[in-house]
């Protein structure tokens, strides 16, 4: 695993990403974020709080699906309660995450763990579009949650845990 990530980093160093990171780290936004000590910690706090509201909301919807919480509401009511929080938290995650990339471009963009995490993020967004689109429409129409939907709900939670794993390990990847 370590070897694989090392070769991934070596490859990233041969891509145009290097010039992009150098350019990004010289932009006025990046310089401002780099030179204000509390800017990055505060952005990270916003990032963590956005995960909290996204993950908490996704957890409550999934628990309702398994009848482990919120059973006095219908599935549709539970979805209505949380869906806006899920999408707006995702927006906040992308905005705060992008600013974090701009503040430390090399640490993130020339980092194999960062790109693994990004694959996870894309998969999570696609899975959420499926879950909160087609699945929820079917459940609202009185359909039952079969094994595919239930497995999907569990996989989405696991995927988010892996994304958080990636997020933390960005700091420990050899760059």
């Amino acid at each position, binding site marked *: 695993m370590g070897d694989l990530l090392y070769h991934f980093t070596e490859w990233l160093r041969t891509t145009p990403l290097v010039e992009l990171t150098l350019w990004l780290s010289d932009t006025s936004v990046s310089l401002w974020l780099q030179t204000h000590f509390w800017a990055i910690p505060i952005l990270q*706090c916003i990032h963590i709080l956005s995960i909290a509201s996204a993950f908490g909301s996704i957890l409550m919807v999934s628990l309702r699906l398994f009848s482990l919480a919120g059973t006095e509401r219908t599935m549709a009511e539970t979805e209505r309660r949380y869906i806006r929080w899920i999408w707006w938290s995702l927006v906040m995650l992308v905005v705060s995450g992008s600013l974090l990339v701009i503040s430390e471009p090399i640490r993130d963009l020339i980092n194999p763990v960062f790109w693994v995490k990004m694959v996870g993020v894309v998969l999570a967004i696609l899975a959420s579009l499926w879950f909160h689109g087609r699945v929820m429409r079917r459940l609202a129409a009185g359909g039952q949650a079969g094994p595919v939907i239930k497995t999907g709900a569990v996989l989405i939670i696991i995927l988010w845990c892996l994304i958080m794993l990636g997020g933390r390990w960005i700091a420990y990847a050899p760059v």
Partner: protein
Amino acid sequence: MYPTPTNIWERIEFSSLGTTIAESTWMFPTLETLHVIALVSVLGTIFVVDLRMLGWTSNKFAVTAVAKDTLPWTWGAFVLAAITGGLLFISKASSYVGNPYFLWKMGMMALAGLNMMYFHFMTWRTVEHWDRDASMPVAVKVAAALSIVFWLAVVFFGRAIGFTLGIFGS
């Protein structure tokens, strides 16, 4: 290999558990990851109740119902956060106790706990009078607002520790 401990914090840090975590390449980051997953679950579920208590969300549903749905998960996640946090602490005990942000974080958690206890033992006694109301009594709103403020502060001070461990003490 390790110097003789001169105080309780060094004794904790130089314990076999402490040095095992500190010397491992993967244990500290893995504990941090579990700590993050646990703390976002704590915050995500606590805020669901706080927002209901402020009268901003879930107003069609009783406060007791919202609390019953979330609190078992909040507590489960809190236990995981406390265990992983405790193990992280053991591996760098003397650095943490010398860090003002760590002390602030512990203080904020104590305040969050006191706020919760006051709410639970005092305000909660009249819950049947306002359980289903859309607009909550002032005491309930204050408890919810304080909970949000204290937990936001816990997150901020927690993150600040990671940026300042090298600045204070050894």
